[in-house]
């Protein structure tokens, strides 16, 4: 039973569920982060080999098959950077959203911006 694989899948499902089920936009964002993390985790699982060493050349080097695959780690660094950038943008949008609408709940936002802060609410959406 490949536990790490199922944990990654479990986190993925959890993240998806959170994005769909919760009405609060920040919680959706958290769900999205968990979802992205799960995928990163999954990718990294592809680098693991039984009994393999860290992919750092040292005196006791045994050849490529004795090292873990470093490529997924490198790829995932990029993916993490992407996730961070996305997170930064998402949080920035959330801050502006809160300033305009006064709330981060989906249904409140759908009803229109808060009268005090923003242009008059438009007609029926």
């Amino acid at each position: 039973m490949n536990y790490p694989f199922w944990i990654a899948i479990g986190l993925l499902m959890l993240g998806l569920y959170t994005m769909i089920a919760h009405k609060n936009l920040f919680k959706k964002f958290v769900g999205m982060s968990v979802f992205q993390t799960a995928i990163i985790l999954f990718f990294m699982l592809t680098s693991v080999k039984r009994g393999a060493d860290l992919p750092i050349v040292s005196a006791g080097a045994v050849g490529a098959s004795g090292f873990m695959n470093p490529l997924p780690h490198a790829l995932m660094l990029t993916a993490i950077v992407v996730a961070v950038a996305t997170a930064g943008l998402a949080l920035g949008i959330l801050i502006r959203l809160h300033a305009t609408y006064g709330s981060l709940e989906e249904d409140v936002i759908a009803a229109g911006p808060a009268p005090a802060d923003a242009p008059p609410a438009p007609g029926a959406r």
Partner: protein
Amino acid sequence: MGAHLPILPVVLPLVGAMLVPIVTLASRRAAWPLAVGAGLLATVAAGAGLVSVALHGTTRYAVGGWPPPWGIEVVLDPLSAFVAVTVAGVSTVGLLAAGPAAERLPRHAPAAFYALALIGLTGFLGMVVSGDLFNVFVFLEIASISSYALVASGGGPALPAAFRYLVLGTVGASFYLLGVGFLYALTGTLNMADLATRVAGQHASPLFVGGVAFVTVGLAIKMGLFPLHGWLPDAYTHAPAPVAVLLAPVGTKAAAYALARTLLYVLRPSDLPVATILAWTGAAAILVGGVLALRQTDARRLLAYSSVSQMGYIALGFGLATPAGLAGAYLHILNHALMKAALFLSVGAAALQGRGPAVHALGLGRGMPVAAACAVVAGLSMVGVPPFGGFFSKWYLLEGTVGAGEPVLAGVILAGSLLALGYMYRFTEEVWLGGSGASPTPAEDAPKGGHAAPGAGGTPGATPSAVAIGLVILAAVTLAAGLGNVALVGVLAPVTGLR
């Protein structure tokens, strides 16, 4: 320089994006020509690439000199060069026409707009020329993040639309990444050509099936293919007009290209029902998008659902996978980009004068002859009236469905034309009504093309020349794409098989 030609379309906009904030320190008005110049250079580079491919065949370029399959490869073949020229060209026209609207933005906003737009262009072009699956993901995200930010720059209702776009877009890109992960686990390589050979015998493996599934779903989300299009209507409706002109024609096309490249040339899952699913989903998209577009009163939302419908044509062509079907789908990538850009631009032109966004309030017929004429041309192309480009992509798709013995799909293509007639007619009917037509309603969700002109009662002002030039270029190329469709099909022949 010639040796580095394949990478230039990606590098030039990136350099431009980095220069934009610097030049704006010196002069606020320098950002626009810089952006247009960067776009133009990228288009020229992509065009040179297309010519080179037509003359010499596929060109491969190893980034940083690292040889594939370990290094990242940039590949210019007929399809990628064709789509690159489309993306770069339409984006450049969009940047050109964005000038008047961007000028009205406060303080540093224009610089941010152009920088983000150029980063987005970098991303889209990078997706198109990349020969490595993970590289596609990276550039996909680069383009997407800039898209989310550009949509959000509209403020007000654009914010929840941008957030939704962000979440759904990230889900899509992450699914793509997951799929790539499956395929990497299966084959150990990320290079497209290498993976194509390695995956050939592995179709039975669950990793293959999973990889195909996730890649397809992920890219379908980014492409806006029904039923995964949820982010599209709100994003296109509430985005500022210049942003819509940049994003709507190009973004979904780059994702469609990625889908075609990955499914049809790398993975080729002939024993899985992927092609059938794509074709019928495309058919559903054509009909659903068209019907929903008919019911819209907001012009931008109408165009958004129209995009959903038109992406269905492209998916249908991919699903048919016959030479004619592919030729039709690829031509439609070009034609739809041109049509959508022209239509969103005419809405933007109306917005600059404080009109719209309701369809009946656009007032295209009043004092905006260029916008009106180009909107009519785009509408005719959308309906599929010859000799405009839109007719020919439909003709090839029709040929493909009839040749494949699928009368229902052929009927759907024709029904789609009629639906397009229905919604485009309302769009352009205003052109003929001249003096009549309701007055615009500025309070209702005014398009963020910049602040509405004072006296927003629909005072007919002149369309700024940049916008007019952009519209004319798009309309002219639409006609040229139609009359010259044989030349285009000839260029694409190596990847479609249609002579």
